[in-house]
């Protein structure tokens, strides 16, 4: 296997708040190969967005990437590189697409101007060249009559159009990797499908690696090749997308799958995972999911599970890997037994 494009080792991003240290990302390691789409999935508060922001070092105080974390990209450690070096990576080698296309564009400039600005930030070419390339990128993202659209202001464009503009901005410098943080969450379903198709298509044509951050397993199924499931600031399961959907190991992943509505069954109520993610200032001891888990036993409280190897390229942070027999005896999760709301 070739050298990975991006290699994250033991990433810990902690927020030092007056209420305590919030360990939002707590020891995350993963690799992305060139041209690959890696999905990170998890519910709100699991640390997936903080992971994405950490990669570009966009964490604001009191947040901090702790010593010992390593983010190696194209041979450079992005944790220790100087600010100028970091700026040369941002938007140039790694670009980011934000969740809210409504507010991620500056209201007082035309969209073409904003796409062209990316080239000027990275200091190549004249204004005219930058503008031409901007129109070219807008064409690439499937915006009809891009020449005229480029001269319009963000408020004159629909949500889907604006998301295409943001994608054009991300593609401007032909980056090696794009981080897409919930790129379709703010869009309606038909537009969502178009945007995902566009991203997949662009990836194949341009060979850009994509890190897809989402809470939506449907988005993962459509775009990702490999998936990380995050819970409580940690990776709890890693697998290729087929294995994950056919053969999920971790009870949390299982719960996520079970919570997805299926077109073949009619149901009055949707399935849910009981309880909520505990606050990052106080992760439970042992397994962080144990209060919400249908299989947890004493060992889960006393011993923090490591990432067990389940199969080729498939790991899971659950003691069931060593005691698979326990899966036959599900029980009510602790949060339901005690009625304790977190």
């Amino acid at each position, binding site marked *: 296997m070739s050298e990975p494009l991006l290699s994250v080792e033991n990433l810990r991003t902690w927020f030092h708040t007056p209420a305590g240290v919030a360990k939002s990302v707590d020891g995350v390691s993963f690799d992305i190969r060139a041209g690959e789409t890696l999905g990170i999935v998890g519910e709100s508060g699991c640390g997936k967005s903080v992971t994405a922001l950490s990669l570009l070092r966009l964490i604001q105080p009191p947040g901090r990437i702790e010593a010992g974390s390593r983010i190696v990209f194209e041979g450079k450690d992005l944790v220790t590189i100087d600010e100028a070096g970091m700026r040369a990576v941002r938007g*140039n080698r790694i670009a980011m697409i934000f969740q809210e296309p409504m*507010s991620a564009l500056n209201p007082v400039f035309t969209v073409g101007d904003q796409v062209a600005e990316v080239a000027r930030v990275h200091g190549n070419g004249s204004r005219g060249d930058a503008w031409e390339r901007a129109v070219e990128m807008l064409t690439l993202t499937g915006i009809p009559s891009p020449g005229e659209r480029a001269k319009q202001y963000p408020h004159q464009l629909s949500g889907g159009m604006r998301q295409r503009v943001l994608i054009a901005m991300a593609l401007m410098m032909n980056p090696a990797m794009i981080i897409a943080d919930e790129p379709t969450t703010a869009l309606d379903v038909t537009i969502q499908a178009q945007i995902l198709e566009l991203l997949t298509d662009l990836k194949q044509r341009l060979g850009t690696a994509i890190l897809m951050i989402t809470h939506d397993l449907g988005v993962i199924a459509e775009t990702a090749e490999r998936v990380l499931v995050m819970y409580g600031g940690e990776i709890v399961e890693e697998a290729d997308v087929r294995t994950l959907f056919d053969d999920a190991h971790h009870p949390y992943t299982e719960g996520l799958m079970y919570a997805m509505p299926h077109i073949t069954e009619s149901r009055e109520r949707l399935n849910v995972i009981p309880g909520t993610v505990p606050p990052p200032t106080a992760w439970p001891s042992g397994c962080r999911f144990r209060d919400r888990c249908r299989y947890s036993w004493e060992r889960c409280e006393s011993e923090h599970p490591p990432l067990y190897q389940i199969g080729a390229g498939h790991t899971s942070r659950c003691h069931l890997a060593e005691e698979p027999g326990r899966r036959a005896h599900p029980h009510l999760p602790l949060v339901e037994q005690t009625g304790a709301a977190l």
Partner: protein
Amino acid sequence: MNSDTPVTRAVFAFGSRQWRRNDRSAAFAGALLLAIAIPCLLASFVAPYDPTAQPDIIGLQSRPPSLSHPLGTDPYSRDVLSRLLYGGRLSLSVALVATIVSITLGTAYGAVAGYARGLTSSVLERVLDALLSIPRLLLLIAIFAAWRDIPVSGFVMILGATGWYGVARLVRGQVLALRNQDFIAAATALGATRLRIFTRHVLPNIVTPVVVAATLGIGHVIVLEAGLSWLGIGVRPPTASWGNMIQDGSDQIASHWWISLFPGLAIVLTVMAFNVLGDALLKALSPRRPVIE
């Protein structure tokens, strides 16, 4: 390519059909201001008399409006119309320059205070709080009472230098709010430097409130100048300003009303026009205003 900025948009807004249709009062205010300002600026060409000449202090003292003196004469036999024009030129220029000074200082200070972090930010904020706690009028009275021979340029500078605190607070608030906008984060994620983000993304977005504050500020300074001149510590006689003209007639306002009334009227109309214009600009310049095409 970059011709479409908030500033050019502000200029075009005056000419657009939407502007006139939606805001007749603003067009009226603008026209009124021009009607006042143009003759004042051309005072040396259109004024019938020398504003400081006292042709006949006995025979022409405090005469009511007549054909030869359309707005009458003052107690020193000077022509009120000529003084009104020259005084207007001075009062308007004083207000304009003082406002430019205070808007510049206030924008610079507020922008730095809002954009800085940590210790710099808190120091600038505390200093601003302290400055805002000084009553401006009392400070000005103290300065001008102590410094009696101040030239007009010094007067203007001091008006400007004491008028920027409010603007600074306004700009600081705007910058603080902008700093947390997604498009600022997006610009950072695209590799822009802090300076570029500041000049490209922060400053253009505070143009609207600053333009509005400037418009309202001019009206405020006109009143302030008039008040100080009326107290006898602003623009010194015999140089005419609207404020000291009111003072000239204030002890005989019942019998010789024309001496004070016309400069008073000029002040009221001008200030009102600036206020109406300020409100209209706020509506017209809002970047998210619905576009009817």
